[in-house]
């Protein structure tokens, strides 16, 4: 088969089932692509070719024996934030450049149990802190649509890989938009589920009350397929929710007639690139043409979501990253004079600039004298934002808007201006603050660069997001476009 790499997971699953090709053949084909093309993208930190081929052979044997998991023999990539037993797990940091995880994350376990074949670990912003993939210790990832541009972040290695047809799916994590924004910037689908829907166990924490694992694919249908495997209760994660996982694929073909779509006025104001806005409006028109109705909704406090996030997330990260002290694992400074020197230099050397900045911001907003003005205040505003969403979802089923304010920007463009970088997540952060599920679906191009339609649902509303995304993709071809250099 010449075009295995161009197929979606659903198509590949059918091909494997029919015996058109084996998982070993498929895996080898994709590994060859990675070997040949990833120099241009830098999407991988680690390629696990031998393990992948072994897993593929096992999947083929299982299929021959009649035991077939939901993702049997299908290749995926893990963001390098997920702990993978016996495999280097770096989180994009020098701090963990030498770290071999002794255990598997729950997500990794579940996908392996379903028969998925892991090609490797994808590059990412260091500790998932970034929106451009430029904070990675392993260098920036490039956007397959334009190698001068960022693929978004922090799951930029995952989004670039899926866009470049290295794999039909890659896991990601989303703390403020880190799945959806890179998906939008690379013309892929990215879903961040409800907080607590997917276990965080084994996912290296950035901001525990915001982090949630999800997946980047090329179609909503594939996202449904993978999410169905990833989701579910995990007794090792106190914040995972014991709530049944619906069969997302079973309802994905259902009509969206009568769906009430909320439009947030603030999402189309001055901050949004005009052409991007036009593509998003056109996409909403397509959804209306399928029988949905639109309603204007008000999220009065949404403008404060970015500053709220930049208090809450750094506060949690400053504490979460304290465990990296050079004692039990990770980078350790040489010839430390004393304990303080060991700590300060191991951390000073092991963390990059953006991570240090966020740790310091977090230490500051939690410190004596500033806690009430920043941390407590941010938690209160977070409540207001969550309440706004709750009110809005009394009247609508989903909220639609742009995923990012503009198409992919050039690497280096925003790296010196943290605030400009932070504002890239202006439309996505609200869902994290409120713990809501959200999806980005490709909805066109601006100057040959992809842009995304963002849909937010109520708690545990993944099903409606996937269905809406799928129905939209049935009407459009944007997700089928492949970057020229990667056909």
């Amino acid at each position, binding site marked *: 088969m010449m075009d295995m790499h161009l197929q979606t997971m659903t198509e590949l699953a059918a091909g494997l089932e029919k015996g058109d090709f084996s998982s070993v053949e498929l895996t080898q084909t994709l590994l060859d692509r990675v070997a040949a093309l990833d120099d241009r993208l830098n999407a991988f930190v680690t390629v696990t070719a031998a393990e992948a081929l072994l897993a593929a052979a096992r999947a083929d044997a299982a299929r021959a024996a009649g035991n077939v998991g939901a993702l049997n023999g299908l290749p995926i990539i893990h963001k390098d934030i997920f702990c993978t037993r016996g495999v280097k797990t770096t989180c994009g940091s020098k701090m963990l450049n030498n770290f071999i995880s002794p255990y598997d994350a729950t997500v990794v376990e579940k996908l392996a149990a379903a028969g998925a074949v892991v090609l490797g670990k994808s590059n990412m912003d260091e500790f998932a802190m970034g929106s451009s993939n430029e904070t990675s210790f392993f260098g920036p990832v490039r956007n397959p649509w334009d190698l001068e541009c960022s693929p978004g972040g922090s799951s930029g290695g995952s989004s670039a890989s899926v866009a470049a047809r290295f794999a039909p799916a890659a896991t990601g994590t989303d703390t403020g938009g880190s799945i959806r924004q890179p998906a939008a910037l690379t013309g892929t689908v990215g879903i961040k589920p409800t907080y607590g829907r997917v276990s965080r166990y084994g996912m290296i924490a950035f901001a525990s009350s915001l982090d949630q694992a999800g997946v980047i694919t090329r179609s909503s249908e594939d996202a449904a397929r993978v999410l169905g495997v990833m989701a579910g209760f995990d007794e090792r994660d106190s914040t995972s929710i014991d709530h049944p996982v619906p069969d997302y694929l079973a309802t994905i073909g259902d009509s969206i007639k009568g769906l009430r779509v909320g439009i947030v006025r603030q999402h189309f104001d001055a901050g949004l690139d005009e052409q991007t806005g036009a593509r998003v409006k056109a996409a909403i028109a397509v959804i209306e043409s399928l029988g949905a109705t639109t309603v204007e909704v008000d999220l009065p406090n949404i403008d404060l979501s970015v500053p709220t996030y930049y208090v809450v997330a750094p506060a949690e990260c400053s*504490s979460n990253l304290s*465990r990296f002290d050079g004692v039990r694992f990770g980078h350790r400074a040489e010839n430390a004079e004393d304990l303080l020197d060991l700590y300060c230099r191991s951390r000073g050397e092991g963390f990059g600039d953006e991570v240090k900045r966020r740790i310091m911001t977090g230490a500051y907003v939690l410190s004596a004298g500033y806690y009430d003005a920043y941390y407590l205040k941010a938690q209160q505003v977070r409540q207001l934002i969550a309440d706004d969403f709750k009110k809005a979802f009394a009247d609508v089923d989903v909220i639609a808007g742009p995923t990012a304010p503009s198409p992919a920007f050039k690497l280096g463009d925003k790296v010196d201006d943290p605030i400009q970088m932070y504002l890239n997540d202006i439309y996505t952060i609200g869902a994290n603050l409120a713990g809501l599920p959200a999806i980005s679906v490709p909805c066109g191009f601006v100057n040959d660069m992809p842009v995304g339609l963002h849909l937010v649902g109520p708690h545990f509303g993944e099903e409606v997001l996937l269905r809406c995304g799928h129905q939209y993709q049935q009407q459009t071809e944007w997700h089928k476009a492949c970057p020229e250099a990667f056909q």
Partner: protein
Amino acid sequence: MSAAWEVVIGLEIHAQLATKSKIFSGSPTAYGAEPNTQANLVDLGYPGVLPVLNKEVVRMATMFGLAIGATVARRSVFARKNYFYPDLPKGYQISQLELPIVEHGELFITDANGNEKRIGVTRAHLEEDAGKSIHEGLDASSGIDLNRAGTPLLEIVSEPDLRSAKEAVAYMKKIHTIVRYLGISDGNMQEGSFRCDANVSVRPMGQEELGTRAELKNLNSFRYIEKAINIEVERQIDLIEDGGKVVQETRLYDSDRDETRSMRSKEEANDYRYFPDPDLLPVEISEEFIEAVRATMPELPAAKEARFVDEYSLKGDDAGILTASRPLADYFEAVIAATDAPSQIAANWVIGDLAGALNRDGLDIEDVKISADELAGLVNRIHDNTISGKIAKQVFEAMWEGEGSADDVIEARGLKQITDSSAIEAVVDKVIADNPGQVAEYQAGKDKLIGFFVGKVMQETKGQANPGQVNQILKDKLQS
């Protein structure tokens, strides 16, 4: 100590909860394992791992709350206390700050004047213990053992209601008794499962405002607590009387030099940046849960003491002594259940010879060499006049040495008391006949000589004659 100064003490007691596994992980909590063999990924603070709360610690804290008449919070919250230290793997300790699981309790101690005094318990909260650092034999390094990291602790914080080192010790002993009664802590101070920090300050007598306090860290024996507090009080008074000022700081008691000294290392950047732990949700406790715990509450020391006084009519402090530990009280009650003798006799034996023998051999009541049933057997033989109290001591020692039951020993050694009046009369007659001089003196009015005759009779009977009968028969015969 100058009478012009009032001492104010508050205690923070750390009681290790007697769970099988750690507070947030499935590692074992057993003491004394090889370094780091009981530290799993959660205890080590590995990247990506998460805490899940042990149900048993919630039950134990609830039980403690009920025992001290406290409010058990229907909703409590875990917070992170952030600081860097090698024995703290995550760089933060999971503890409770604003919403602890237990608040507003109280208990009563006896003060220096013998009066009952109420001591308020501000709060008790759950937290994880740290590991430990080992400094010996590693040259320029310290070694870190994280076996203890994540062991559940209940931190019990008193009001500053204590006014002397003695009161502090009395309060701590009360808490010690309670947690052991409840079975929620083994209270082992050598192993560090029960230790305290003391906040100590002094103020001029009559002054309302509290003086500046120093915190004495890691006091792990009742003796050290008393010594450390007294030394610190002296230091503070001397300091103030010399025109100095007490600085708020953490101090360590050095038992070798018998002094407290400042721990400056703990002071630097003392900003813990507490915030609610996002990895854990609020702990919610239902009324049903609290009632279920209440239903399993054992009788507590104060109630037991009152009942012992009431039910067994014990004299003086005996009830208090017998209820100081639950196994001792249980032992006593088992003796009572197996004998018809007056309870006071049983009490005397438990408090006297039994406690003495345990103390002499360095044993706990759990390791006692004479079972309650066996001791009851001995008490029965005293009560039915088979042996005298004096002989009983001999029998007790033999039983302790493993020579069998009271009856076995009495039989084997031929210690059975002579209660046959004619046998005693025969001996008395012989003693009177052998000592005509003393008889004459006695009859001339030297009553004190009765002791001489009793001694002679007991000598002749090898101590086995019933002393009451001997007395009576002697008096009768000497008067005639």
